[in-house]
């Protein structure tokens, strides 16, 4: 650099490619998320506390169900000092093998769920380690795990912190402890948070989880209580185990296709398509190859970029059977009703589970339940509870396909009041569940479902079906109220006809009574005839 150039650039020191290269290095995924924690649901202290609980409970429920245990979960939030809280979530699940514990809790994107397509609460394997990382970042305290896999096995106690640079776990403590539980896992995280009641609260989350998971019992101890709140089990039936499926060709994006072709164990393209995807027969595989102008015998691992792109386009031009939908595990109408009944004090309950459908090659299923009347407030907007794979969605309501579907329906036709563009008003809790092998969330923090037309359609049909049942109930209810009103009308005003006639005609009390009883009788009869 010459003097003049340096002068032109002012006093600022210029960088060279070499000096810049010195600072360029790989950014670990953990490092990325520690700087972008809002992507994972840790954007503010209140939400951080909720997300930590939620991630731990999701894992516990998934583990219990997979191992066939009826879940019993203990959630405890303790106030440590100032803004510090200690969250503890304990389950009666199968426990975790000792060697796996550090990786599961101390490494982002480590999990069993990302690589397969199967309906489960967790998807990416980010959640719980991110919660632990958030705790570490805000309090410096490691995540504490206690886990035991069976009565005859020892209980392992770990204190782990994540090395954000390397995305690897650092074990602080590793020892065997005495633990009263025969099997299960306890996760403890200390973090900076805000404890609040009401909307978006942990308590709301716990209640909604209890509704969507009636087979689960929860003991919840908030920071301001000594005794746990016991949310009892509403059913002893474990949901059927969801089945794992291979991806359907329609649902695969180009990037994923490239990776799958690189990683396939098949030697030939035709075989790879048949083996790694669902619903691809030899005939379909041949059709795809032909449409792409590729030989079925080509080596899939050596496909060039443009070739894979042709393959990608070819897939979408060939007619392929929809994926099998028996891999889904909906809550079921009975269980939705059981969940609503045990947590909500209302008069009328109904639920609908739609038959499975497919969006972009991914099977999904929609369920809607509702609770109406009783002690619910009649002059407020309806309470919309959204769920994806049994997990309550508490934030970003307006961005969610479920909300869009609810808003698109004219609820006035079903006996509720509704302002333009708003949720309906009435004593109603609306429960909407979307189950899928891959729920299309709009962001990593899993708060709202993306609006695919197929999903919106299923939501609409399910909501309408429940709406019709609700309307029938409301009509019957109004008729009964009308009847009651008429009856009281008769009782109220006929005596006045008696009084007037007595005054005009100077009737005796008996004569007056005779008129009144006869008249009541005449009107009661005509009323029952009118029905």
């Amino acid at each position, binding site marked *: 650099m010459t003097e003049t150039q340096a002068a032109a650039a002012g006093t600022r020191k210029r960088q060279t490619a070499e000096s810049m290269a010195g600072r360029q290095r790989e950014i670990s995924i953990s490092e990325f998320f520690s700087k972008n924690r809002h992507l994972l649901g840790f954007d503010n202290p209140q939400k951080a506390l909720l997300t930590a609980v939620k991630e731990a409970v999701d894992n516990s429920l998934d583990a219990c169900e997979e191992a066939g245990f009826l879940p019993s979960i203990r959630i405890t939030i303790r106030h440590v000092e100032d803004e510090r809280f200690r969250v503890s979530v304990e389950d009666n699940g199968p426990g975790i093998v000792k060697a796996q514990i550090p990786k599961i809790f101390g490494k982002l994107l480590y999990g069993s769920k990302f690589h397969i397509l199967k309906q489960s609460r967790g998807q990416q394997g980010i959640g719980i380690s991110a919660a632990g990382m958030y705790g570490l970042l805000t309090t410096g305290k490691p995540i504490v795990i206690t886990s035991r896999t069976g009565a005859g096995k020892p209980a392992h106690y770990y204190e782990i912190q994540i090395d954000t640079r390397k995305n690897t776990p650092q074990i602080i403590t590793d020892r065997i402890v005495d633990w009263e539980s025969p099997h299960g896992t306890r996760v403890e995280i200390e973090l900076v948070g805000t404890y609040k009641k009401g909307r978006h609260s942990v308590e709301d989350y716990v209640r909604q989880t209890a509704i969507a998971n009636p087979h689960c019992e929860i003991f919840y101890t908030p920071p301001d209580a000594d005794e746990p709140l016991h949310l009892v089990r509403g059913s002893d039936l474990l949901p059927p185990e969801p089945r794992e499926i291979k991806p359907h060709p329609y649902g695969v994006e180009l990037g994923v296709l490239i990776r799958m072709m690189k990683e396939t164990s098949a030697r030939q393209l035709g075989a790879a398509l048949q083996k790694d995807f669902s619903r691809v027969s030899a005939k379909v595989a041949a059709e795809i190859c032909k449409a792409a102008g590729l030989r079925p015998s080509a080596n899939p691992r050596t496909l060039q970029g443009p070739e894979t792109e042709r393959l990608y386009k070819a897939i979408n031009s060939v007619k392929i059977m929809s994926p099998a939908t028996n891999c889904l595990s909906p809550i079921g109408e009975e269980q939705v009703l059981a969940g609503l009944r045990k947590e909500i004090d209302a008069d009328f309950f109904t639920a609908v589970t739609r038959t499975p459908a497919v969006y972009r090659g991914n099977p999904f299923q929609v369920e809607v339940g509702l609770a109406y009347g009783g002690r619910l407030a009649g002059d407020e907007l309806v309470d919309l509870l959204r769920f994806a794979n049994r997990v309550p969605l508490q934030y970003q309501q307006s961005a969610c396909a479920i909300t869009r579907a609810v808003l698109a329906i004219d609820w006035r036709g079903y006996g509720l009041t509704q302002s333009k563009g708003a949720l309906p008003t009435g004593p109603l809790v609306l429960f909407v569940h979307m189950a899928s092998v891959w729920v299309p969330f709009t962001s990593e923090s899993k708060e709202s479902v993306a609006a695919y037309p197929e999903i919106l359609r299923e939501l609409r049909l399910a909501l309408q079906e429940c709406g019709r049942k609700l309307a029938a109930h409301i009509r019957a209810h109004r008729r009964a109220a009308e009847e009651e009103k*008429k009856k009281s009308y008769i009782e109220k005003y006929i005596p*006045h006809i008696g009084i007037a006639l007595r005054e005009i005609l100077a009737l005796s009390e008996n004569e007056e009574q005779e008129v009144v009883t006869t008249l009541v009788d*005449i009107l009661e009869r*005509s009323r029952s005839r009118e029905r």
Partner: protein
Amino acid sequence: MAKEPATGKKPASASNKQVLKAIASSAEDIRRKILARKKPTMKLPVRSLANVRYQPERGFFEMKGRKKERTLTVNTVKTFAQTLRMVALSKDLVENDDIATKREAYYVSKNWAEARFTEQPESDTVMDDVEAFFGVNREQLGFIPEEKGGDVAGRLIVIDRDRDTGQALRIDCTRFGSGAYSIPISVEDLEFETDADFILVIETAGMFQRLVKHNYWKKANCVLVSMGGVPTRACRRFIRRLADFKKIPVYVFVDGDPYGITNIYRTLKVGSGNAAHLNEFFCVPQATFLGITPQDIVDYKLPTHPLKEVDIKRARDAIKNDPFIKHYRPWIKAMEQMLKMGVRAEQQALAKHGLNYVIEEYLPQKLRHPERFLP
């Protein structure tokens, strides 16, 4: 000034005994039906403009005879009970030769527990129903209105009776100075002495005050009557009896707007749709319309206000549905002219040409050609 007996048919003046009999027999009727296990009914004339016809030779809105039958059902039980209790109250009043104002009757209903009225219009409606049901004037049922009858000044002596002695009282309406004689609620037994040439009936108290203050009645040799809005039954009956008695014309001077024409003037002349069974007596068929006409607005270059939404609706409604307006071509034309101009003018608008312009110019000019008055 000759003293002559009041002419004109009197309202069917049922004696107290007859009223009591009618009440008792209708109640007995209802009781009999109930005991025979039938739903009792009451037949009431439909009280609306749609149930009246106008024939100029008869001179007033006559009921077309359409009746509604109110059957006692679950839905009507409240009104039915209230109507019967109102009848019972009336019986009590007549029996004891007492009276109750509409407002008082409303307050009496507060003793009726669930059958009480919440607002006076409700009790007024029921009272009107009872009146129409028995086909008599409500005064005969013991109910009297609150409203003032109207004010009178000018060349007239009213002969009333002293309440205690029954002696004739001669009330000289020229001797009230700047005040006026107030028309009583019952005018049936009044007698008159007058040599006036006509009766000038005025809508507003303000205009009346001006004419009285300047002794206009002396100059024009007339009787002045102030209606203060839509004329009460007593006011209409008073003007009718006086006009019949002396065979003198009645000229009406109101605001030039749809309300002045279709509500005030029309009600004075032919009665209302609401109490059609009584219009025969409470109307002034000989009345004609002096002003303010829509043409006056043009001729006298009067300051105006734009017609309000409700004025336009009222005018259109009158052209379409009012049997009186519909009967007279000149009235339809006048209403259409007003709608076209889109403006209205008040009596007081004449003050634009000077405060006493109305006395010195407008009325004398108008009165020179009574044959040009609107019917």
